[in-house]
């Protein structure tokens, strides 16, 4: 690598680390989601996250990044950086002053990928995999890129002064709303409301949540796009908020059922991380702890409520991420302190107007996400069926979509030998019969 004076070694080192941390969140999410699905759909669910690392990433590198982050207009970037054109090692770019655009593109790619993967939680167990692959390839370009542009790429929400440090609206409100709309368009699993869908592997859920927390240090800390005090603030807030959420969530669980649940603890960690995401670089640490605690309440009750509706938004992406993201975005407008973030004050520090701007950003992102996801799925639905057949769902998505099983001892399997030997025998046997 050529060393240019304006490239900062510490910033580069941190941002490369942060990129790797955020990348880990997508497979982590696969395990978080996979553990909550039944044993006949676990590979399908995990693959829904893993495949975004290929299909969505390719779309992002080819056009998504340029549409999201090139100057363009207030609504959308243009294609000047398409095909990774000018995504080079030059310092001094406005979005990434001390690191190279290549790293900035990669860092942002990991956000776009995990957001796409989050949507899959609404549609597990019934979507045809081919249709899903088309969906995630197009969604990252058509839905994620514009919203990212609005807030971070020089678009209208950023210009309005909306505070979203690491993606409360861009990532979480967006993914949560998209998951709900996708669940409505694709429809419920065949036995939803008649059968209990019991989690197949709760330890996977806990494993996924812990890896998500680890990766989230890069998600929030890296959003400073430098190795500086702001990154340290976001890092520590990422550390504190989920703790507050976990305590409140556990108490709510105990009050309701008398027991603290493992899935509850895992969910609390993720919700706490979601809530602090937009605020991580804007609020003092003590408010981060308070935000984490407060943030548990809306998502907790949203999950309780959703389970009683006829909507099979299977893994509660809406309750966890849209409700949690909106809570975090609004509370950012309450708790932001300029002395810490050098950008803007919130309500408590004497700037009530920020609350309105935050609400507007949430509403804007939610509206576009709903509309974009709806139109995209309807269009894909005209070309190919979105749903797996009832029979395929009953048999399990792993064997029917992927021709594999997650857990099998191999009992009752017979080796099918290569073409040469069994084929003629079979033919001659048929001829005799």
């Amino acid at each position: 690598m050529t060393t240019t004076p304006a490239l900062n070694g510490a910033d580069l080192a941190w941002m490369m680390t942060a990129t790797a941390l955020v990348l880990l969140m997508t497979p982590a999410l696969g395990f978080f989601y996979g553990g909550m699905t039944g044993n006949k759909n676990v590979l399908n669910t995990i693959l829904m996250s893993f495949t975004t690392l290929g299909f969505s990433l390719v779309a992002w590198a080819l056009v998504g990044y340029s549409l999201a982050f090139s100057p363009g207009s207030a609504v959308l970037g243009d294609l000047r950086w398409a095909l990774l054109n000018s995504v080079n090692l030059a310092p001094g770019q406005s979005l990434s002053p001390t690191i190279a655009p290549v790293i900035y593109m990669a860092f942002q790619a990991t956000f776009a990928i995990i957001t796409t993967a989050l949507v899959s939680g609404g549609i597990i167990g019934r979507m045809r995999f081919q249709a899903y692959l088309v969906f995630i390839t197009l969604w990252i370009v058509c839905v994620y890129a514009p919203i990212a542009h609005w807030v971070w790429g020089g678009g209208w929400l950023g210009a309005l002064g909306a505070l979203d440090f690491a993606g409360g609206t861009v990532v979480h409100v967006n993914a949560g709303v998209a998951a709900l709309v996708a669940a409505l368009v694709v429809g419920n699993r065949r036995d939803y409301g008649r059968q209990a869908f019991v989690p197949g592997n709760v330890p996977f859920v806990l494993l996924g949540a812990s890896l998500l927390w680890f990766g989230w240090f890069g998600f929030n800390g890296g959003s400073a796009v430098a190795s500086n005090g702001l990154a340290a603030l976001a890092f520590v807030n990422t550390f504190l908020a989920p703790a507050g959420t976990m305590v409140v969530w556990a108490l709510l669980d105990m009050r309701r059922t008398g027991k603290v649940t493992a899935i509850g603890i895992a969910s609390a960690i993720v919700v706490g991380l979601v809530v602090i995401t937009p605020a991580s670089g804007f609020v003092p640490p003590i408010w981060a702890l308070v935000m984490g605690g407060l943030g548990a309440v809306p998502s907790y009750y949203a999950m309780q409520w959703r389970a009683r509706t006829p909507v099979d938004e299977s893994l509660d992406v809406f309750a966890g991420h849209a409700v949690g993201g909106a809570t975090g975005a609004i509370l950012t407008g309450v708790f932001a302190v300029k002395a810490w973030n050098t950008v803007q004050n919130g309500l408590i520090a004497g700037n009530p107007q920020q609350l309105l701007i935050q609400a507007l950003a949430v509403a804007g992102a939610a509206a576009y996400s709903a509309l974009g996801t709806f139109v995209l799925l309807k269009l894909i639905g005209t070309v190919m069926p979105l749903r797996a057949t009832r029979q395929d769902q009953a048999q399990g998505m792993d064997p029917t979509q992927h021709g594999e099983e997650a857990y099998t001892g191999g009992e009752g399997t017979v080796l099918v030998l290569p073409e040469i030997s069994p084929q003629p025998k079979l033919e001659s046997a048929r001829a005799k019969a």
Partner: protein
Amino acid sequence: MKIIVAIVRPERANDVLEALYRAEVRGLSVSRVQGHGGELERMETYRGMTVKVELTEKVRFEIGVSDHFVEPTVRAIMLAARTGEVGDGKIFVLPVEKVYRIRTGEEDSAAVTPVG
């Protein structure tokens, strides 16, 4: 000859095995089964979903014995498997028409009598 089928609590299975060993009952097979014997259903909660677990885990013993072994076998199982709570299980004693030992071709009582 009889075959004794006993369905017991999994947490008592080791006690049953030990009691059978002390009663000098040899030759049995064990399988994990699920069932319902009128015990209380267990409730589980996953986020907003509450499920009732109607089937409980049990262990099923199958023991082929000659007639004079029936009583000590039943007694051993009964004492080892009993907790006094609903859900302790059942013991069935069934007639057996014919028994063969595959290795030697011995029949009936000879086939269920342990070797040496």
